[in-house]
């Protein structure tokens, strides 16, 4: 929904910070609607708060207004990111209209000739970068685009234009000894500020693009793309770890809200005494201590074959996290055959060592490299058949791609029957399930299958896992 152009105040009157201008309320409501459409939960209470805040901060201070609105409307880091993007997008036009009003002369001047001394501009920008002043950088980014960017309307690709302008300005992080000593670029500029300047350039170029094409960038579904699990190679391992660290903390507290005070053998003397006062000191009602939550026994099978390479790094780190959270956990990795790795996880506290040890000792890597689910089930059954009981939970991490081999769903059914609960985490989007050699449908009949390629989905799974056995599914 493009923001409608409200009656805008002519110009901010100095000293008249009494309250927001009349048009602003409508704008804020429209903005809140936009946020809602991106999945940020905003209630009337939040809106009222937002208006209360706008009454307190000078509405002409862009930063203050933004922070104030963010504090009332965006109540998590996730929401905050959406907020930032939308705020830019939404208040774009208003800002842009004003910029045109004021900058008409400036831009006209550049188009007419080179009134701006390019060398002076370079110097100014470099000085602003060295001092790291935000406001100056933004203004100068505009000037830089006016000076260097308009030749032939740019390449059409914003990233390319940004780099071209940066090179034209000679902004580098490395020292440039060939420059005269008074030049701020001589010793190299701080890398972060150069990056920040690039951000400004990018934003301004986007602004220009929007002005030219007269439309806002399509609102891409941020939430899905940005929350997707990192699927690249080891470079993303740190990102995986951050997610897992959070998961670990969640797991540690998970299930506690389900802890109640049900009938239990231990009498809580203190609370019984207090309750006894209602009956004049006679303990008529006994109070019991809360019951400790039972940690489930978990069996995890993790596919580490090549078809799930990117996911298995992630899965292994999840497995690692699970080991910290659950005491009774046995883990297995498999490709063609199965191999128990519980010991490795217990011995090694460091994930890097774990993955190295699994590659080295687990003995799964030296066979064909193609998953054989049928064989995996039969080996798993022989190994743990006697230990499986209705309170146990079996979790399979894999894509259910059998490479054309017999899925042996009957064996899997036997596993699922002996265990209390069976979950399947599939790193492929549901769209691809049962295409090609994927036989997840055969297994899904016997277990709860989850697609698991974003952190949100992983969280859903964790919630399901922490739900006590016998509780209704959501």
């Amino acid at each position: 929904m493009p923001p409608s152009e409200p009656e805008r105040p002519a110009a901010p009157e100095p000293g008249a910070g009494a309250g927001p201008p009349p048009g602003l309320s409508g704008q804020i409501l429209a903005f809140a609607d936009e946020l809602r459409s991106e999945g940020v939960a905003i209630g009337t209470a939040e809106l009222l708060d937002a208006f209360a805040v706008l009454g307190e901060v000078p509405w002409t201070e862009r930063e203050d207004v933004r922070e104030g609105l963010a504090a009332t409307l965006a109540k998590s880091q996730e929401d905050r990111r959406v907020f930032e993007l939308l705020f830019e997008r939404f208040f774009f036009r208003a800002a842009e209209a004003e910029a045109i009003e004021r900058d008409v002369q400036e831009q006209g001047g550049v188009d007419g000739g080179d009134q701006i001394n390019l060398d002076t501009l370079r110097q100014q920008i470099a000085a602003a970068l060295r001092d790291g002043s935000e406001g100056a950088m933004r203004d100068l980014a505009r000037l830089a685009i006016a000076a260097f960017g308009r030749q032939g309307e740019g390449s059409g690709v914003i990233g390319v234009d940004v780099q071209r302008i940066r090179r034209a300005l000679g902004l580098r992080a490395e020292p440039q000894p060939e420059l005269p000593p008074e030049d701020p670029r001589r010793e190299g500029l701080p890398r972060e500020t150069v990056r920040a300047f690039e951000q400004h350039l990018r934003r301004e170029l986007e602004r220009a693009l929007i002005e030219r094409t007269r439309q806002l960038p399509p609102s891409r579904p941020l939430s899905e793309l940005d929350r997707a699990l990192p699927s690249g190679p080891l470079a993303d391992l740190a990102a995986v770890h951050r997610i897992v660290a959070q998961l670990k903390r969640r797991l540690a507290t998970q299930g506690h809200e389900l802890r109640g005070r049900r009938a239990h053998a231990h009498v809580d003397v203190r609370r019984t005494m207090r309750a006894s006062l209602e009956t004049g000191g006679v303990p008529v009602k006994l109070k019991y201590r809360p019951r400790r939550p039972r940690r489930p026994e978990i069996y995890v099978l993790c596919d580490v074959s090549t078809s799930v390479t990117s996911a298995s790094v992630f899965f292994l780190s999840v497995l690692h996290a699970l080991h910290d959270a659950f005491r009774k956990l046995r883990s297995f990795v498999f490709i063609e055959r199965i191999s128990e790795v519980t010991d490795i996880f217990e011995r090694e506290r460091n994930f890097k060592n774990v993955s190295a040890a699994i590659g080295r000792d687990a003995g799964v890597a030296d066979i064909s490299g193609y998953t054989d689910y049928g064989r995996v089930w039969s080996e798993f059954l022989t190994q743990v058949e006697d230990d499986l009981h209705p309170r146990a939970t079996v979790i399979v991490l894999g894509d259910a791609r059998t490479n054309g081999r017999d899925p042996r769903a009957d064996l899997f059914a036997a596993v699922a029957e002996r265990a209390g609960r069976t979950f399947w985490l599939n790193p492929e989007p549901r769209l691809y399930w049962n295409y090609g050699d994927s036989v997840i449908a055969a297994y899904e009949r016997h277990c709860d299958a989850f697609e698991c390629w974003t952190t949100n989905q992983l969280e859903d799974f964790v919630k399901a896992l922490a739900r006590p056995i016998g509780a209704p599914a959501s």
Partner: protein
Amino acid sequence: MPVMPVQAESVQHVAEGLRDVGYLPGESTALVSFLAAKLGKPVLVEGPAGVGKTELAKALSRFLERRLVRLQCYEGLDEAKALYEWNYRKQLLRIQASSVAGAEDAHGWDAVQDDIFSAEFLLERPLMTAIASEEPVVLLIDEIDKTDQEFEAMLLELLSDFQLSIPELGRIDARTVPVVILTSNNSRELTEALKRRCLYLWLDYPELEHELEIVRLHTPELTETVARKLVEVIQRVRQLDLKKPPSIAESIDWARALLLLGADDIDADTFRDTMSIIVKHRTDLDTVAERVGVELGGLTDASFGAGAPRGA
């Protein structure tokens, strides 16, 4: 106790006030603190451990010259420890005393019952203290994410209306509106209802310059160059994949340690010796020694080269 507590007048005023009591707020921190004091809304502060969430509440209490009432949350915290509790020992004594005197005493059971559920037998816990205080206070509810959801639900009445309901006594309204700060390490998702009642502030590790300022504020004796290098190293360490990245508190500790040791530069040796101040896990120690220690060893020459003209 001052007669007139300090009022927050503007964002600038709050920022300067916090600065004066030894807390360097970021822009949004100052703004949200100002709004909290002005609008009387609770603030939910989230962020990684050690970025100064709790410290913010302490600084606010110093700046506003209000008493700090702190409720440390933990698993299994219940209303008896957070709100109020009947002093049942005293109540028992009262009952026994009245039954001894009962023969000639005309007061019957009704009188005793009225009596033992009065303010005299009430043990105030932090939340109650904050509400009932004559002077406005700063209420810090620390690590709210450690409690269970029922406790959060119980807080709602307090946070939105600043009142408490005690079945035997009725409703207790706040005499003064406290500034409420809730902190969370984000270990679980807080309920929407709670978030709805709060302003939200996300505190993150500060930018290099900001952190440098903080370190300088706490250890003004440390030379500028060492402080800068220290902060640079800390920022570098935070980028590594660690179990527990160093917090601001740890950079300050490290700065103090360096000051005590009289170090005038952070070279590979100093770093190796004092590393344990900022890194607290054995595996992290290895990672940091491997990555940053080596870098520092190589860096010392280069940084001397680059540092010389800057100093001249």
